[in-house]
């Protein structure tokens, strides 16, 4: 390739936070029309790097060369002027505004809202991404929101489009549609920097890949020439632990958790209402609930755990009606709950780990109480036990919850809940934002718990995870739960269709 053709070249880009190197001497090149993957685990520095390209952050060292010229990108507007567009991972949309208003905000001033609306409807139809300009964002599905982001980006006529984990919120079918659009953009000569940790899609889509680990470039390759295992090795830096299966032939035991005709209205305008949900969970069984974010997963978790109370008869733990009981009473019956948000929900960010132990275990573990007082020594002992048994890596002996990495905190939270005699475990998004190494351990523990006779309910958006651990899978779609089907008799495609079938019927 001729040097003059290079669209974007990064030379020795570094970004420091104190002594922590978020990005360390990163260099890469992107050609026009190329779909270039930026691969790496959570925390490898991918987002930091693209934020610098897009002008949201400033590099401490290094040069950005755009079409042969060294450039300085002081803010996102400057990046857009150069021809860099971005589709964010956590959508950067404004819920209370309309589609047209959202798009107008990212365009240079001078166009009326009507013009913007007209142009966006034209471009969205021509790319097969239909949108209504006057719809409000909070009424749109996640897939539609991503369309808004993409169309907003296209209207700026970019030469390079940065896509930050675009498929993490999509069903397999929606992802296929997205890939078609991306291939077409690539044919039109637009370069795409595609950030992901999903290896299969990178192999299917990307012509080049740069792999980051701990803020450094650890490899460059043509993804099609590699195997998923070799890519994963480069990403993680070691071999990934494979789940050792348990003997599923063991007959399932008693019904441990039962949900009967559970309906709950949404608390606020943004919540999903649960509609007539019924299922049973047996001892020794792992059941998985799949679904796209925002289809009632959090509401279901809250109802099962007792964060929200319902009709008494709607939820039974070991046959005892508990629907109107609080979370502590349900824990005393042997049920444990691990919520999606680690920081701020499962753990208090500013509290030490030992203090976080007390928060959920004080009613169960009598050793933690000395009369009306708390025994800090006993709490520290429990903390040490969890840390040792669940391999929690930490800086000091009793650090605050917020100082732990996502994976280590998740291991700690899981350990805290299952240390006692957990007979029922309900976990929401167990490995969301957790590094691949820790995620494999967490899945293994869930499998081991079931092998010892616990009933496990896993709510997850990660289909790979569910197919790896669950015996049966159901999907949650707009607050309705499908029947559970054995994992062996279904596949990703069928589950993916189920995840959206409600929306298809409506369309």
């Amino acid at each position, binding site marked *: 390739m001729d040097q003059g053709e290079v669209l974007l070249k990064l030379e020795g880009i570094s970004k420091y936070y104190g002594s922590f190197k978020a990005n360390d001497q990163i260099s890469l090149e992107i050609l026009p029309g190329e779909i270039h993957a930026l691969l790496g685990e959570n925390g490898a520095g991918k987002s930091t790097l693209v934020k610098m390209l897009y002008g*949201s952050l400033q590099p401490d060292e290094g040069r950005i060369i755009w079409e042969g010229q060294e450039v300085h990108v002081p803010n*996102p507007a400057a990046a857009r002027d150069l021809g860099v567009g971005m589709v964010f991972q956590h959508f950067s949309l*404004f*819920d*209370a*505004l309309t589609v047209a208003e959202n798009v107008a*905000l990212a365009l240079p001033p001078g166009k009326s809202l009507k013009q913007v609306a007209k142009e966006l409807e034209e471009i969205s139809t021509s790319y097969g991404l239909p949108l209504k300009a006057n719809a409000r964002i909070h009424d749109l599905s996640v897939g539609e929101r991503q369309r808004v982001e993409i169309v907003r980006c296209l209207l700026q006529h970019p030469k390079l489009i940065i896509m930050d984990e675009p498929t993490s919120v999509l069903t397999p079918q929606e992802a296929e549609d997205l890939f078609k659009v991306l291939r077409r953009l690539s044919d039109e000569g637009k370069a795409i920097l595609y950030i992901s940790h999903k290896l299969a899609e990178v192999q299917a889509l990307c012509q080049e890949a740069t792999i980051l680990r701990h803020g450094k470039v650890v490899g460059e390759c043509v993804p099609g020439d590699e195997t998923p295992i070799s890519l994963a090795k480069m990403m993680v830096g070691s071999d990934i632990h494979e789940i050792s299966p348990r003997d599923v032939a063991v007959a399932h035991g008693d019904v441990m958790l039962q949900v009967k005709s559970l309906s709950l209205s949404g608390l*606020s*305008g943004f919540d999903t209402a649960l509609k007539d949900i019924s299922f049973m969970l047996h001892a020794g069984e792992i059941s998985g609930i799949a679904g796209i974010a925002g289809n009632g997963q959090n509401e279901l978790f809250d109802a099962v755990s007792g964060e929200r109370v319902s009709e008494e008869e709607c939820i039974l733990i070991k046959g005892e009606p508990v629907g109107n009981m609080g979370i502590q009473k349900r824990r005393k019956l042997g049920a444990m709950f691990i919520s999606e948000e680690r920081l701020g929900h499962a753990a208090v960010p500013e509290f030490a780990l030992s203090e976080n132990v007390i928060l959920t275990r004080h009613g169960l573990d009598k050793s933690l109480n000395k009369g009306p007082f708390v025994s800090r020594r006993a709490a520290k002992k429990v903390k040490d036990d969890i840390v040792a048994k669940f391999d929690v890596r930490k800086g000091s002996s009793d650090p605050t919850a917020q100082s732990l990495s996502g994976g280590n905190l998740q291991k700690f939270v899981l350990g805290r809940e299952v240390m006692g005699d957990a007979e029922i475990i309900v976990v929401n998004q167990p490995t969301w934002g957790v590094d691949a190494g820790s995620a494999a351990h967490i899945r293994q523990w869930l499998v081991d718990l079931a092998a010892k006779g616990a009933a496990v309910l896993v709510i997850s958006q990660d289909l790979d995870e569910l197919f790896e651990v669950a015996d049966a899978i159901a999907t949650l779609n707009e607050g309705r739960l499908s029947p559970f089907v054995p994992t062996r008799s279904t596949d990703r495609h069928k589950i993916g269709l189920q995840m959206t079938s409600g929306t298809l019927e409506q369309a």
Partner: protein
Amino acid sequence: MGMTEAILLTIATAATPLLIAALGELVVERSGVLNLGVEGMMIMGAVGGFAAASLTGNPWIGILIAILFGAITSLAFAFLTLSLAANQVATGLALTILGLGLSGLIGEPFVGQAGIKLSNISIPVLTDLPLVGPLLFGQDPIFYMSIALVIGVAWFLFRTRFGLTLRSIGDNHISAHALGIPVLRYRYFAVMFGGACAGLAGGHLSLVYTPQWVENMSAGRGWIALALVVFASWRPARVLAGAYLFGAVSIGQLHAQALGVGVPSQLLTALPYIATIVVLVLISQNVRTTLINTPAMLGRAFVPER
């Protein structure tokens, strides 16, 4: 001028300061900032306006200084909560306490002095028309400013790009920042606009409503203005309706007292405040609508990533 006209005129006069202060706070809250210091900024405007008017003899200079005092007081709030990311609730409460105390100090020499009233306008023939004459063409200049302000704020928020940008910041300041919108600059302007409005409302109190200086003369109107913004679910036209409803109740109770209605006067005096509480309770019944209309970032500090 008949009795009906007189009552309607006093209602407008009672509603105007509430309307102006609430419109200012509406813009502040639409940008995602909660300034509970409206009462403090208002009383600073009242004392500044009165002092300037009585020193210069010109009520218009009083009005100007009132606006300036409100804006300067709000600048202290803006610096603490925006540049230093201090807690908005605590800072707003402190601003109210500071304003009430400081205004007492500044106003000390002016206690008991006769004030200068900003006179009502008068247009030959038109003002003399029955009923509509005094109401439409014979009020004080600030009344007309308040109506213009309702239209201006509505137009700004929903018809201009700056207004759209301001609303987007109130909805999600992280996204706004990611798009390259200068979040803090917009918020500074919004907070100072709110301060200027509160100051003007204060000036109206000490130069039009009751042209004299009395300590604590804002008498909780700043808090009512705050409640009005919620009552109006952050929409300018509804602020107008709310301010006049409240004005009508507070004037109505005065007339009821004068007529000797058999209800303790304390209860009647409390009526406007009871009305505020009742309306707020009624509004919070519909959690869904309130939540969707509320600026999502209200009261949350924004610290840009570096």
